Structures are given as structure tokens and as C-alpha cells.
């Protein structure tokens, strides 16, 4: 097991190295400078470029950049003069993580519930409603959904704060907006799993032992259907990252998603590179943890993983 984890971490580092290199050279292909002020004359720009080390040959810049990354230094933001990318991310990651975790928890819990109900009442109107609801959750683009939530729940009915990041209450609407994707995914997945489990032999056995349907579901079916959900945590994390770009923008939340969108429109390459690396690290780590977790839950996976 230890050997397997170490090997995986080795691959992870290799992956990140390649990602960093590719992003670096992609960014070098693009126009753009650290200079915010459009009015700087060309002669002055030449001087500033030297100050920023942008006049060096590309391979030397690459070396500097990679050495920097190894020390956790992603350079300075072009947009926020004098702020390092690492500092920028450290001040902004809090709200994003909080929203992500909240959305993940709420989304999965509600999704499990919805999926389970649909499976138990299979092929009835309950099932149909739950299925349609889950699909609609994925069918409305989240920038539309977030704007609707804000308009109705916050502006018209004044149930929640409209926007900004100011305490827990202001995180409710963005969490709901974000939770739709994991909710829909979990619900559909849960339904399929649960239907399988409910028609399996041991459930029949439990039923034949005279346990009520409620007992069967609570004691056996729920637990066994929930385990495979671990496998979709990775893709859900990706969905959440994508969603946060939009939701943070609509609700004016100072998180990394909003920062990413802003960096794109302002050509803030160091921040784009830093955030790309961050997203990759988060995703690979999530996948690694999921794999390890799953190895513990289901020994067969561990064995085949080691054999690979």
C-alpha cells in the first residue's frame, strides 16, 4: 500500500511538472505584459521589461520560473502590482474552499436522498419527478440559475443577502447555486446503484427474514449503494471548480474562481499559471485520496491498482 501511494505521488509530481512546463510555454506565445497602465510609452516599457527579467532568453525565464515553483514562488501578479501570486491565492482561497465543501456536502446528501427515494419508488411518478428534477439541475446554465436565485430569493423575497462575502448567511445562495451539479450527479448515480442493490440476493434474504422495507433500506441498501459514490467525487470536484468561476462572479465573492475569470480578461498570466497549477494539484490530490479511500473500502481495487 505504501509503495503504491509513493508511486502515485511520484506520478503526480511528474504530471504537475509537465503541466507547469506546458502552461509556461503557452503563456509565452501570448501577447501581454505586467504593465497595467496603457499609457506607458514604448521606451519606458523596454526599461520596465528589463526590471521584470522579461528581456532574458526564454529558456532562462523558464528555468527561473521552474526554480521559483519548486520554492512555492509563482512570481508576481501583473494586475495587482507588488502582490505575489502565492499571496493572492492564499487570501482568496478561503471563500472558494468553504463554498466548495458546503456545496459538496449539501449536494451529495440531497442527491443521495433524492436518488434513494427514486430507486425505492422505482417507475412511479415519484421516480419520474426526481429524475426530471435532477436533470433540470444540470440543464440550466449556472450563471442563469445563480442570477435567478439572487433575483427571487434575495432581491424579491429578501430571504438571504444579495451578494458579497459577509458571514455564513451570505454563503447560502452561492452554495445552493453550486450544489446543483453535484446534487444531480449523485442523485442519478445513487438511483442506479440502489436499484441494483435492491434487486440483489442479500436484500431478498433480508426481506425474507421479515425485515420491513424501511429497515432493509436503512440497514443494507443505503450503505452499500453509497460506497460507489466515492468514485464520482473526482468529476464532481471538477464541476465545482467550473461552477465557482460563475457563481463567485454573480455573487461578488472574493474567491479564486472570480480571480481566474478576472485574470483571463486582464491577461494576468502569472495568476493564470498559478491557478492552473492549483486546480491541477487539487484535482490530482482529490483523485489520489479517492483511490486510496476506495482501496480501503474495496480490496479488489487496491490489488488491481498495485498490479498496474
Amino acid at each position: 500500500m505504501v509503495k503504491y501511494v509513493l508511486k502515485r505521488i511520484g506520478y503526480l509530481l511528474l504530471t504537475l511538472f509537465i503541466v507547469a512546463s506546458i502552461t509556461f510555454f503557452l503563456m509565452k506565445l501570448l501577447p501581454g505584459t505586467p504593465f497595467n497602465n496603457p499609457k506607458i510609452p514604448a521606451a519606458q516599457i523596454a526599461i520596465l521589461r528589463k526590471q521584470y527579467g522579461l528581456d532574458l532568453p526564454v529558456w532562462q525565464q523558464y528555468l527561473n520560473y521552474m526554480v521559483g515553483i519548486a520554492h512555492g514562488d509563482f512570481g508576481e501578479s501583473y494586475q495587482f502590482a507588488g502582490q505575489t501570486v502565492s499571496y493572492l491565492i492564499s487570501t482568496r482561497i478561503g471563500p472558494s474552499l468553504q463554498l466548495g465543501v458546503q456545496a459538496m456536502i449539501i449536494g451529495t446528501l440531497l442527491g443521495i436522498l433524492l436518488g434513494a427515494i427514486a430507486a425505492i419508488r422505482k417507475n412511479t411518478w415519484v421516480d419520474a419527478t426526481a429524475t426530471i428534477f435532477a436533470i433540470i439541475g444540470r440543464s440550466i446554465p449556472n450563471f442563469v440559475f445563480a442570477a435567478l436565485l439572487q433575483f427571487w430569493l434575495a432581491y424579491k423575497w429578501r430571504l438571504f443577502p444579495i451578494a458579497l462575502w459577509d458571514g455564513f448567511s451570505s454563503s447560502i445562495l452561492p452554495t445552493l447555486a453550486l450544489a446543483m451539479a453535484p446534487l444531480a450527479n449523485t442523485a442519478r448515480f445513487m438511483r442506479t446503484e440502489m436499484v441494483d442493490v435492491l434487486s440483489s440476493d442479500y436484500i431478498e434474504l433480508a426481506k425474507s427474514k421479515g425485515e420491513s422495507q424501511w429497515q432493509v433500506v436503512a440497514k443494507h441498501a443505503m450503505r452499500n449503494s453509497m460506497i460507489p459514490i466515492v468514485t464520482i467525487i473526482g468529476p464532481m470536484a471538477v464541476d465545482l471548480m467550473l461552477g465557482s468561476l460563475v457563481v463567485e462572479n454573480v455573487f461578488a465573492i472574493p474567491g479564486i474562481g472570480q480571480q481566474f475569470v478576472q485574470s483571463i480578461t486582464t491577461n494576468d498570466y502569472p495568476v493564470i499559471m498559478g491557478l492552473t497549477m492549483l486546480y491541477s494539484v487539487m484535482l490530482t490530490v482529490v483523485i489520489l485520496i479517492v483511490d486510496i479511500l476506495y482501496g480501503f473500502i474495496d480490496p479488489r481495487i487496491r490489488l488491481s491498482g498495485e498490479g498496474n
Partner: protein
Amino acid sequence: MADTKENLQLGPDAFKHVATNTQAQEKIAAPSLTFSQDAIRRLKQNKFALISFWILVIIGIVALLSIWFSPADPNRQHLAYTHLPPKWGNLNIPFINGYRNGIDMYAKNGVPKGTYFFLGTDYLGRDMLSRVLVGTRVSLFIALLATFFDLTIGVFYGIISGWKGGTTDTIMQRIIEIISSVPNLIVVILMLLVFKPGLTSIILAIAMTGWVTMARLVRAETLQLKDQEFVLAARTLGESSTKIAFKHLIPNLSSTIIIQTMFTIPSAIFFEAFLSYIGIGLPAPTASLGTLLSDGQKVLQIYPSELVFPAVVIVVLMLAFNLLADGLRDAFDPRSDNR
């Protein structure tokens, strides 16, 4: 091959004779069907999937026909008629009577009698109905083409990786691992920053990132098929790998490919919408569902109709594709017999 021998000790008294009805045994309850016939039969039983299928066909035909029969030129500007609400002839039904906040916007803007915009007009006075039609067509076009590329890359990558095995497989899997460790949205964004923004680069960007899932599924299936008798037989008979791939593998992979395709199309539509929202979508004045939605979202509270119509179209499209994909998966999956 693999025979399991169980160590059971049962005496003759453990069995009792059951009367057999040979006639009943011989009777075939259902007509004999090929696999695809069976799948179609099952699909037809799924009401949602069937309705979805026909909705998609209708949307596709309407979007296609609008190339020749558009109610108006979707890019024709009418600055005198900007932001008109929907109006359906002289019907006096709220929301489609040309009134906004109790004012007849058509009269206020001096629109001649007999001129109606069924879905209203946008910020340059362009006919929304025509724009929604062309937008649907463009979005579908992007999604279908991106899916086609992603299917081609994914299927071949998966087959080669699974079929060759060994070092080739290991290297190809490592590459997939690296690609999938960057969220594909980020890859798309990076690519759009490097290439000139436009239809082609959006299609390529979506295709380049979408094939990974397909490749994984195809590889897994190929690994299984590889050891099956009919493939072994073909191999023994000396057929080339290419021929085996086309004659034996792809037909047997078709259900996986079809299902995955049905899931990829809606996510490509979604992606395009998302890219428009963050400002790196299609260049103006081309309409797509994405550009219509992101323009509409900005004026949601002032001119809701400009968001509602494209939103309805995208929701219907997504619903239909997803329900159809679900139906197909159930239809192709023999396990789902009893569902």
C-alpha cells in the same frame, strides 16, 4: 475454460422430481430479436426517451430549415425597435401582447401595425426568434462537430491503447492521466487564449479535452473483447489488426460509443454557453445559445424575455439529450431488463 468445482455432498434424497411440461419449455415467449432490435424495442418502451428523441429531431429540423426559412435576417439591425417585448399578433395575453410595465412598447417605438416579433427584439433591434433559431443551429453544430472529433480521437486512442497493451498502453495511459489532471475547462480556456477566438477554435478546444473519457471507456471494453473467442479466431485466421478493429471491435463497442456520445453533446453545448459568459465565446455578431444567454443574463431584470427564450431552448435540449442518453444506456444494458 474456468470450471468451478464445488464441494457439495448431496444425497439422492435431496432431489425430488418435478413434472416437466416440454411444450411450455419449447415455447418462446418473445420474438427472437437481434441485439440492436432488442435495444430499439426497449428504447421504445421508455416514454421519456422516445419523446426526447422526437423533440430532438424536431429541434434539429427546425434549426436546419431556418437556414432557408428564417423569419428575418438574424443580423439585421433595427435601432428604432430595440428591446421590444414579444408580441403574437393581436392576442391580448400577458407577456406576449407587446406590453411591458403596462406600456405598449410597440406603439411607443412607432412600430407599424402588422409588424410583430414573436420573441421580441434584442439590444440592436434584431429579431429574437431568428436569433434563437440560428443560435440553436450554431450551438448544435459546435456540439456535434466537437463530439465527432472527440469520438474519433477517443475511439482510436482507446482501441490502440487497449489492443497493443504493454508499454504502449502504459505510456498512453500516463498521457491520459496527465491530461485529465488539469480540469478541462482550464485547458479550453488556455487554448482559446492562444488561438484566435472563433468557431473553429472553440470546436477544437472542446474536442481536444473531451476525448479522454471516451478513450478510457473504449480501452476498458477493448481489453475485455480482446480475449473473447471471436476476436481470437479472427486473429488466428491472420486478419490484420486494422481489419479486426473495424470488423469486430467497433461494432461491439457501438453501444458504449453511442451512449457516451449522447452524454458528450449536451456537455459541449453547456461548455459553449459557459465560454460565452466569461467572455471568450463566439465573436459577434454570430448568435449561439451561449452568446444569447450571456447577453440575456445581463438584462434579466429589465428585459426578462431576452433570457427566457434561449434558456428554455437550452433546458429542453439538455433534458432531451440526457433523457435519451439515459434511455439508450438502459436499452443497451441487459442488466436493465428488469427495471
